């Protein structure tokens, strides 16, 4: 018997198991009635979408800003070095 046949046989035995009984009716309804769980309102959904869209825009914008900065920082550094050399 190979490993898979053993797993299959174990699974077949495991399927006969009776799971423990659960009764969550009171707890679920208690949570819902207490107002601890509420579906998102239209405004909340709108804010959620706004947050998602702005983070999608923010990441490429930050990357573009970093690239622009590194490109423009090179000549600026050269100018600064030239000035400090001229002062000396």
């Amino acid at each position, binding site marked *: 018997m190979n490993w898979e046949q053993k*797993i299959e046989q*174990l699974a077949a*035995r495991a*399927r006969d198991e009776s*799971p423990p009984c*659960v009764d*969550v009716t009171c707890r679920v309804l208690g949570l819902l009635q207490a107002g601890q*769980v509420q579906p998102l309102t239209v405004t909340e959904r709108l804010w959620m979408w706004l947050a998602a869209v702005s983070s999608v825009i923010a990441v490429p914008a930050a990357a573009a800003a970093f690239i622009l900065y590194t490109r423009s920082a090179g000549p600026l550094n050269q100018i600064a070095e030239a000035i400090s050399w001229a002062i000396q």
Partner: protein
Amino acid sequence: MIDASSLMSEPAGFEAIIVEMVRALAHSAHAKQPDVPADSGSADLEDVRLAGRGDGDAYRRLVERHQDHVGRILWRFSRDRRVHEELVQDVFVESYLSLSHYRGKAPFERWLARIATRVGYRYWKQKARRRRTEPFDIQEWDKATDGDSVLEALEPDQAAEMLHRVFEQLAPRDRLVLTLRYLEQCDVVETAQRTGWTKTMVKVQTMRARNRLRKLLEHTGMESIR
């Protein structure tokens, strides 16, 4: 000469035959599904409709009707009774929150099974992040799977516990697909529905998970591949 009264009565008789035929067909369709109560689907739909309008009693009936089924699914995800109960509770809270998305195209039970799978999978991912995995006893595996008679002598709960601990050594994604395929006996289509993955992804994931399981058993010396 044609009798006017016979013309009037003929369509009524014809309609009655059609009605009888439809009834007979409907009766035979129900007779082919002995496990599904004839009115459970319509009762669910009605209760979903009422619960959507804020009827607490309707939602209570839904929870009472389906908690055993959800509990059975989630027992594969956690064998800790306290966690299990919390997961079942989470499923019904989530299902209440997304009740407006239920269109009634699939049975409510199947819709709940998808939510239960998602909740269970999320629990596994959280557990994996916290790295809380029970150590696996290799000797116990060897002893338990040494020969057909020993495997057959295992009690169902012992077999389930053993399988749970073996699958626990895998990544949540692998564990999910193996649990659905082996324990729940879901085919590719059903696994795709339960996980929200594509059918191709299910096939690829099953193959990868099986390879990882094989390697795990080889690596730990639990099994030699023949």
